[in-house]
């Protein structure tokens, strides 16, 4: 395997008495989309801030392209394109002015034509002369992404790029992220949305309470834990009888729905039908759900992704 483009070793970071990172190590390979998945407050943003050179870790080190962030942050900052969690741009400037000034901060000087080309990719050409604060949430987010790559960086760090966006705007951002990846850029993004991590990322680090609890491809994360499928049905049956059905490892009621974890859903479903028939009950609304990252997270941390929000 080649040398990682981002290499963080044993990072510990604290804000006052609160320890945000507890000995985190991470390596990101060139050209991958790497996701940091975890609930709010898990330490994702702090980890990014250490990579960005915005937060000095108490212990450990970060290297970007072989350069130590702590000893030469100007050199490492030059390689990065950054979008912070909150869209923190100078909102009294127009869209075109912002792209121009942020590129210039990296000593990259764009011509008017180059600014137009960049804005076109983010569907912002018509908004070229509009003040940033007059844009919609989705447009502001696209602008933040345009600004993030104004310096043509090889590594792009995106902190919650789609939080607070409607589904349509979220898809638009996903498309942009995939495009940036297709151009050969390395992308690291944080998210607390499981479906986003699954949809975009080649590899995912699951981070909880300042520690990385697992790191692999989404498929491997799910496969390695040998998680069961979830079979849902609307039927009233005694739970102890349901639990003794073949291959059922767990069962519970959530409202009217019976939820069963099973290794072999087709066997369980047949048995459930027989049990319902014997008890004179009918089954409605049968649904099968494959295990996903949400289940991985729950299994690894003992709590749901959304819980610690």
């Amino acid at each position: 395997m080649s040398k990682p483009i981002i290499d963080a070793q044993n990072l510990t970071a604290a804000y006052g008495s609160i320890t945000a990172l507890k000995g985190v190590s991470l390596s990101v390979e060139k050209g991958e989309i790497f996701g940091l998945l975890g609930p709010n407050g898990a330490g994702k943003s702090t980890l990014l801030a250490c990579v960005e050179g915005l937060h000095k870790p108490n212990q450990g080190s970060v290297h970007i392209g072989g350069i130590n962030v702590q000893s030469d942050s100007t050199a490492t900052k030059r390689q990065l394109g950054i979008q912070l969690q909150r869209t923190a741009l100078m909102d009294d400037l127009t869209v075109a002015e912002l792209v121009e000034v942020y590129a210039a901060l990296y000593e990259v000087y764009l011509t008017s034509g180059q600014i137009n080309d960049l804005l076109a990719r983010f569907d912002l050409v018509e908004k070229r002369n509009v003040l940033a604060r007059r844009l919609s949430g989705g447009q502001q987010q696209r602008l933040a992404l345009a600004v993030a790559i104004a310096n043509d960086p090889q590594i792009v760090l995106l902190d919650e790029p789609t939080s607070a966006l409607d589904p349509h705007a979220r898809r638009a951002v996903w498309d942009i992220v995939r495009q940036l990846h297709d151009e050969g850029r390395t992308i690291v993004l944080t998210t607390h949305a499981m479906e986003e991590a699954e949809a975009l990322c080649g590899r995912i680090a699951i981070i909880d309470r300042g520690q990385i609890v697992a790191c692999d491809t989404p498929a491997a994360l799910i496969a390695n834990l040998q998680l069961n499928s979830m079979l849902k049905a609307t039927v009233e049956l005694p739970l102890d009888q349901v639990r003794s059905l073949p291959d059922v490892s767990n069962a519970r009621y959530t409202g009217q729905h019976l939820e069963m974890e099973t290794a072999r859903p087709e066997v369980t479903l047949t048995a459930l039908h027989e049990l319902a028939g014997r008890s004179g009950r009918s089954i409605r609304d049968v649904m099968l759900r494959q295990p996903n990252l949400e289940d991985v997270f729950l299994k690894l941390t003992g709590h749901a992704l959304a819980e610690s929000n």
Partner: protein
Amino acid sequence: MKRFLILTKAMTLMHLRNGYVLFWNFTFPVLLMFIYGAVMSQYMDYMTPGVIVLNALSFGLVSSSTMMLEMREKSVLRRLQATPLPAVQLIGSYLLVNVIIGVLQSTLIILAGVVLYDVPVTATSLLLSYPMILAGMLAFMALGGIISGMAAKAGSATAVGMTIYFLLMFISDMVFPLDMLPDWLRNVVPYLPAYPVVQLVRSAMLEATLDPKWLTHLFLLAAYGIGATFIAAKLFRWEPKA
């Protein structure tokens, strides 16, 4: 250099497009002249230098930090910190824009004095006045930098700045003559930052000469300016207090 120029252009546009900045920096100073003129139109020769310093004081302590505090609160500074831009260029660009704004304000007040109240100015008096105004303004801005470094939020910085402004306004020989103060206070005032500026600007503007104690005054201002710059640099924060 090109980076600095593009950044400074952006900073200028940000200031010019901000209604709050425009009102307090360009409308309020002229309003001040109207207010003082309405109350004591026959003393406006004497009052105009006082209003200039008064304005420089509120500008230095409060208005000149407004945009910086806003950028800090909205995480704009943090976003800038993530770029390879050296902090010194960011602050330099910001100060440059604000010094120009401050000088423009003083010019507006002088113009209002000349046009509305026939305040007599000559080329010599103006040539002597501007460096004195500038010296005062820089010292006040450095002091304002301490306030914004210490304050958790823009609102509290304004409150602290305005309190100091009002105190200095009443005791620094700007609107009330020094004779009206109690003895103990009269002995302290010459060592406070606003008093030397008033003396320097007043003799430059009204008599086209240097105040007899100009060297002492400038030395004191330099001490305030350099000391405050040092403390403000130590207190400078990219992020709001957690």
